[in-house]
């Protein structure tokens, strides 16, 4: 049977309570009939039957580029860069797509007799990946062949001696990337395109870039002019990366781009988690029993144990497409594959947008979802999952469900703690924050040290998370968090509510009593095409 596409459900009196993710837990909420609707993601597309064969075929028949085999020769400098731990979400079951692609690339390199190979986790200002995370991404075979000799490593955006300045765009944006990549005869970039923002020139221009480069597009102005940053035709972030990509290309850096897409099979079609990707009225007795056991069990578990359970989940997602060759041509095909899975047509905007935030976002894999990341996931990622117009009208209300604990991972997010305690205590205005505080955090020697030698996100990273939500902050009339830690929610500048009914009451003060409601039923990931 063909997978069913995503759709919009009009809520009536017989609609069952709707699933809201709530961090490492769940809520079932009844939405008001007659004025509510729910947007459901499409069912998982069929995965490629022979992913390894498809990868080999893409390498032999690339788009607008010679076959990879023809670009490899003995004595060359080959650099393989790959996406970091932030993709895909959650981590996928072994073998990871990056492993499949990298093994196929290296097999051709071995055939051509290439000896000088470096593999770089393109993490920009994200935290370094641990050995087990790298092993999961590239596989034990690749790890054991290269890491012991220091040839497989995390990118270091603060290693001044190993960065190369390549020039400026026509808008004066500086481009500085990994020296090894810049001086290689060929860079092969291995991407997993989870959402339409990923991939393209962003892979190299962001993944292998330093703060000097990133600050030109990771800022409030760019984010507020990206409507949305998931929509390439209306994204200032996308345009900036494309301008930088041109500088990289003109500097003589040869990039062979390999992009892959995955389906929506996040929780599987069997087992207790599968209920989370079914539509509520289709839950069987077994699904209901699983859900009850899971949600009741989670309620009684300490938060560390709950995180451990969820972080241990590996999604059985399958590969739906692989394209290789020239960056822009490849990315057009990849974006079409992403849209094929995620795009759901939606008619008109809503007054109130509701969403249940899950346990994971790109920046807390194997970590803690702190309040800043809650804001980033809701107002940054989920709010921006639209094409055309935002799902919620200007001046509307966003209601998010998440426990929002006042809790931080001390190793991964040290600068977040200070950002939350010092910066947000003074102001939540992104423009003011950027002007007053960013440079101090970005150039702080202690944060630099932790980023380079420990597993900490860069000092400036929490600022970027806040900027990620700046378009939503400007657009919305109010933001309410249901079931969150009251103090933490207030520190974020949002309003806390105990229940969804309370939140809807509070929202009516802003948008009136008969306001329309739309629930964004995510995950699995979907993108609204709002007409």
């Amino acid at each position: 049977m063909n997978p069913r596409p995503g759709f919009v459900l009009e809520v009536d009196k017989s609609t069952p309570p709707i699933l809201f993710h709530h961090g490492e837990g769940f809520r079932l909420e009844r939405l008001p009939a007659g004025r509510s609707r729910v947007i459901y993601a499409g069912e998982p597309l069929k995965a490629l039957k022979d992913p390894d064969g498809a990868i080999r075929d893409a390498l032999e028949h690339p788009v607008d580029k010679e076959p990879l085999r023809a670009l490899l020769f003995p004595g060359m400098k080959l650099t393989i860069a790959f996406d970091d731990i932030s993709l895909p979400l959650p981590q996928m079951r072994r073998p990871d797509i990056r492993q499949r692609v990298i093994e196929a690339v290296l097999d051709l390199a071995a055939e051509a007799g290439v000896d000088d190979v470096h593999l770089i986790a393109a993490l920009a200002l994200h935290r370094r990946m641990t050995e087990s995370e790298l092993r999961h991404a590239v596989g034990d075979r690749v790890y054991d062949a290269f890491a012991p000799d220091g040839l497989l490593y995390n990118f270091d955006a603060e290693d001044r001696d190993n960065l190369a300045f390549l020039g400026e765009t026509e808008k004066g944006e500086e481009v500085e990337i990994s020296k090894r990549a810049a001086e290689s005869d060929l860079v092969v970039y291995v991407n997993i395109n989870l959402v339409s923002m990923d991939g393209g020139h962003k892979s190299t221009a962001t993944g292998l870039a330093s703060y000097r480069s990133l600050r030109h597009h990771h800022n409030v102005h760019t984010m507020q002019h990206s409507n949305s940053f998931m929509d390439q035709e209306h994204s200032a972030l996308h345009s900036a990366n494309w301008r930088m990509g041109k500088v990289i290309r003109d500097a003589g850096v040869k990039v062979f781009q390999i992009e892959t897409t995955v389906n929506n099979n996040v929780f599987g079609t069997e087992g207790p988690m599968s209920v989370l990707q079914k539509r509520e009225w289709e839950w069987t007795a077994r699904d209901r029993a699983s859900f009850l056991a899971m949600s009741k069990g989670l309620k009684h578990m300490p938060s560390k144990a709950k995180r451990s359970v969820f972080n241990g989940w590996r999604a059985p997602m399958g590969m739906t497409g692989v394209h290789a060759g020239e960056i822009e041509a490849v990315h057009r095909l990849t974006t079409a594959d992403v849209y094929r899975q995620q795009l759901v047509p939606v008619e008109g905007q809503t007054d109130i947008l509701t969403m249940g935030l899950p346990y994971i976002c790109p920046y807390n894999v194997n970590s803690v979802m702190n309040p800043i990341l809650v804001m980033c996931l809701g107002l940054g990622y989920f709010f921006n999952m639209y094409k055309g117009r935002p799902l919620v009208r200007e001046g509307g209300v966003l209601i998010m469900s998440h426990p929002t604990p006042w809790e931080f991972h001390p190793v991964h997010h040290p600068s977040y703690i200070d950002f939350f305690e010092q910066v947000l205590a003074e102001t939540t205005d992104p423009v003011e924050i950027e002007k007053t505080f960013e440079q101090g955090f970005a150039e702080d020697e202690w944060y630099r040290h932790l980023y380079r030698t420990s597993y900490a996100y860069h000092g400036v990273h929490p600022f970027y998370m806040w900027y990620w939500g700046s378009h939503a902050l400007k657009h919305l009339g109010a933001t309410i968090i249901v079931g969150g830690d009251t103090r933490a929610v207030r520190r974020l500048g949002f309003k806390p509510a105990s229940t969804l009914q309370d939140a809807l009451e509070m929202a009516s003060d802003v948008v009136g009593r008969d306001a329309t409601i739309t629930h964004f039923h995510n995950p699995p990931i979907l993108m609204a095409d709002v007409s």
Partner: protein
Amino acid sequence: MARSPLVTRSRGNGGRKPTAIASSWLKRQSFPLTAPTTPETVEPVERPGKVGADYDTDWARRTPARIARLALVEGVMRPAAAVLAQPDRRGGDRLADVDGPVIFTPNHHSHLDTPLMLTSIPEPWRHQLFVGAGADYFFTNRVTSALSALTIGAIPVERRKVTRRSADQAAELIDAGWSMLIFPEGGRSPDGWGQPFRGGAAYLSLRCGVPVVPVHLQGTGRILRKGAKLPTPSSTTVTFGDPLRPEDGEDSRRFAARIEDAVAALADETATNWYEARTRAHRRANPTLAGPEVARWRRAWAADATRAKRRRTGRWPL
């Protein structure tokens, strides 16, 4: 002092066991207590054999036997393998896209290889698996036959003469969804080096249309080599390779050679690393399993080199 009746009886039989006495008595009897002899002018009646290649192992694949085997594999073999072999299992991810039965073809150095494989083969193949075992070694009498069939799920394979029965039985089981474990060398290594791969696994793959998974076992020869009485604990590596399918027009002999090359490449991968092994594989320069073609003592010397080195580095206080 009075003697006990037991002591008196024991002395009267010369200290022999009751079973030996009974066996000896039976041999002295004649027909009809023993089997009749056939007149020379009459064709002898062919009676179906009960052991060897004719042993019927169907019972060992029924549910009670499978449950017993599961308990043995998980409750006895797994802890024993963990203690004796400390296995490092690699390459299981290479089977991610395989659906249905397969034929596993490891190299063979030790009696430990079978339990190690039975505990290393990933699900869903592990518990619907049969083992091709030498009829002349594992199925010589009813007791060893039953034990082999029950504990490792063995079926008898004729090694010394050409027969269709073993192949037919294996093919039937594969067609019914069972995976097979077979050691294509036909027996354990006599000197620590590999022996040429026979064509049985390749033939079955061609006949049944199922892939062959090459596997390399490293280190089991150090633990319990052929001829050794007691095991010596050591570390081992089990490396699964990419599934292989026969190419168009490839016969079982050439396919068997390709399987052997794949196991040799896995051996190289274990000894060095994946990229170096792939580089040599493309140049067809992976060291062979058979070892150097030099005098016997030099082969033994070369095979022993790794072991000697490991011994030295591990000894206190050095």
